[in-house]
């Protein structure tokens, strides 16, 4: 995954066209034009308007986006602020062109119902983080914590090393636990757990 999108322009010598470009030959002129276009693109943010774009799910299981008559057959959607704004600012990227950003969805709720459910389903998979509804048991041994919990997806058992990297606190009451396999579990509000569960958890926080 190359974050910078696109290969470097070949043979580009004087490729900073912003101020007083010197004399250049034809080949370089083309490069410059391409680079300038790329650079302009890089600096611009396109916010996607519901009216301009049509999201659909293809048989392949990937999301297709049609925008301005252009069709992207495989787009991936990333949360820009996965925890603090999960339903806003979604970055839509072209998986077939080095994950270049096509645009940002400012607010998912502004889109039609079927688009919302499609994108939500994909986001759910991408950011799969079971919510811990109930802590069934916590066992601590030699720095390794084993937990059995009930989540919305069913019962989960996992283990993690009890250090600062495994238990992440976000805000006052939100807790994320990352197990040894890098699966994540979240407790949206610790205070909503029973006192007994909180006591079990206290030893870890």
């Amino acid at each position, binding site marked *: 995954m190359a974050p910078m999108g696109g290969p470097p322009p070949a043979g580009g010598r004087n490729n900073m066209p912003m101020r007083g470009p010197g004399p250049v030959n034809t080949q370089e002129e083309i490069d410059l034009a391409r680079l300038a276009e790329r650079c302009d693109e890089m*600096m611009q943010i396109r916010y996607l308007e519901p009216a301009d774009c049509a999201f659909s799910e293809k048989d392949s299981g990937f999301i297709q986006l049609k925008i301005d008559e252009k069709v992207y057959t495989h787009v991936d959607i990333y949360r820009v602020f996965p925890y603090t704004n999960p339903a806003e600012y979604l970055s839509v990227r072209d998986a077939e062109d080095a994950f270049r950003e096509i645009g940002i969805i400012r607010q998912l709720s502004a889109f039609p119902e079927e688009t919302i459910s499609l994108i939500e389903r994909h986001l759910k*998979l*991408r950011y799969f983080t079971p919510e811990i509804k109930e802590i069934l048991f916590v066992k601590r041994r030699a720095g390794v914590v084993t937990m059995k919990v009930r989540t919305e997806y069913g019962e989960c058992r996992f283990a993690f090393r009890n250090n600062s990297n495994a238990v992440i606190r976000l805000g006052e009451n939100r807790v994320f636990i990352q197990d040894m396999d890098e699966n994540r579990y979240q407790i949206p509000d610790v205070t909503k757990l029973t006192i007994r569960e909180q006591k079990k958890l206290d030893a870890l926080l």
Partner: protein
Amino acid sequence: MDKKPLPKKLAETAKTLGITEEQIIAFACPDMNRDCAFVKSYLLLTKEMLVIIDGKVNPGNVFVSESLGEVPEETKDVSEHEIRKIPLEDLDALKLSSQIRTGLMYCEGQTTEVLSYFTIARYGEMLQLTAAFTQLKHPQAGGETETERGRRRRRPETKARRPMEGAPEGMDETEKKMRPREHLPVSLRLFSYLKPHRFRLALVFLCYIAVAACNLVWPYLSGTVLYDQIMSRDPAILKTLHIQGNRFILALGLVVLGMAAAKFLIMVISVLQNLLNAVISNHVIMTLRNDVFASMGELELRYFQNAQTGTLMVRVLQDANIVSRLIVDEMPGCIINIFTLVSTVVIMFSLDVKLALASLLLLPLTVFMSAKIRPRLHVLFGKRHRAERGLNTALNDNIAGARVVKVFGKEPEEIQKFENTNQKVQDAEVDITKFSGLFNASYSFVEEMSTLFIWAIGAYLVLRTEYISYGLLLTFIGYVAQMNRPIQDLVRIFRQWVDSMNAAERLFEIIDAQPQITDAPDALDLDHAKGEIELKHVDFGYEPNIPVFEDFSFKVPAGSMLGIVGRSGAGKTTLVNIISRMYEVNKGSIRIDGVDIRDISLRSLRKNIAMVSQETYIFIGTIAENIAYAKPEATREEIIAAAKLASAHDFICKLPDGYDTVIGASGRNLSGGERQRLSIARAVLADPKILILDEATASVDTETERAIQTSLAALSKNRTTLSIAHRLSTLRDADYLIVLEHGKITEQGTHEELMRLNGTYCMLKELQTNALALKGLE
């Protein structure tokens, strides 16, 4: 590839499908469906086909994290599952796509289609399966996709830990070895370190029993024998002691000697016991340290990068600890001790002046020992402290320099070095224990002897004259014993006091430090700065006698870009430091929009100047918080826009936690270029009138530099920009350039003018162009 056995039931199912165990090249157990429900699915790869056995959604399914190393329940009846067979000729490629917390496998060929979904824990085995497929399909290529490579790079630790054969019951060999040890409670593991010392331990127990026995003898001698037999002149005692006649004084002398011997025995045994204790505990600690260090050498690099290595903070914390201990623990003890001492002396004198004087006769000896001999122990403590510091330095070096150690393969040497340092600590520790054991023993011996002295004198007085009663004597002895402890404590507290005062001094030094640069009383706020900068006859030096600039003047018009060129040490960074008033000039003035910066409030000055330097500092917090550092009230859109301008948006979006990623001290580590781009985004959001770029692109690759350059070019529009760079290509957009040498401007003008001048600039430019041309970059 070593084959791991298939789960039994799966093998049976495979048989019903007409596939023998030998035909299966690879298998994997994806554990999810497209709706994120936990299922037990299987993938079988043979030479002819890929078999997908899709698990059913069952509310009773329990998700078991792979690292628990438990065998997931085998599906009872696979026949109910949806089974799909895809001939290999229909598949061109099997690819994995990382979904941050999950993953999916899709095929390319006749159709592009997602075939299965799995949690991140299954990534390893899925990777095995796709690799086996690629190997089968394109034996010569044997490669992996870009995504997969990226994925592996990101998780180097899982490669070693995770079984790569895709077995669900997977524990690899190292894991199996580690497990039993890991699961022992810490205390039990500590006990295992005591094993080599079992004989010494037995001896220590014997010592305890002997001391207890001696201590039992003492009251017997002082009570029964002394009072009931000798003092009440019981002839039986003379008989037992084989003493002729009525010589009770001789009997008394013998008993006293016996008691002294008992105490002496206790002393000898305690010395032995202390020595044993010290040898055992220090050896255990040393072994532990060596073990920890040796295994640290084996740990992955990431572990070191996350470890905290602060030295100043530690010192400050330690100093604070010392001071607080004195205040919290010792001061109350001190008061109680003084009170006890004074009241004891008063009571003693009020009871009997002569006996009180006699009691205090030996007191100077204990005071002398505490005050004069004990300090030698202190010297030894210092020695140990230095040895420990050496140990910490060795440790610190290895944590901070873990990369260098690994690169040069110096782990064995470093471990040897560490063991040597550790040996020194142990030696120092043993020295201390030897001396303090001897000292403590002889000290308490003197203590006991002084009590005995009073006791003897008292008893003599009781026997010879009727001057005092037994009861009074006993009371005095009690008091004298009571005085020893406070004296000892007071001497100790006094010494600690000196230490604590030193520590407090260091702390106050920090607290009392006065800021050198402050606001003038009538400082102005620069509200709508244009950004014109002028230096007039500036003299400056970090040390007053070593000037960096002398009579230095130049002017930068508002909104233009000034490039500053010069060799290392020419004063480039110093120049921008004095312009942003990090240091005060010695003479002359620096003006912004015609106002002396000393007349501008620091707040508004700093608000108008932003600096992006080669040293980037990332605070503990999320990426969004770091970007919004100078403008905490920034909206989400402003933050995204700033990141976008700084070419940071893309890499941030690809982090699993996006802008919410926690970075800094113990958080995720960013690369040099990433940090650089974050600090540019920070500057963008601050929206300053004057932008200082101090080697802003020094730590990034050419590719990233181009991106950053573009950002910076966009950023410097309508701003006064001072740009320092070694790479002259960075400065090609500058309106005006100055060349600094030894704090003086030697050349100035536009790029063309300087090239025509054929001086330093021209030379540097040519050197760099040639160097880059050699590398094929320009």
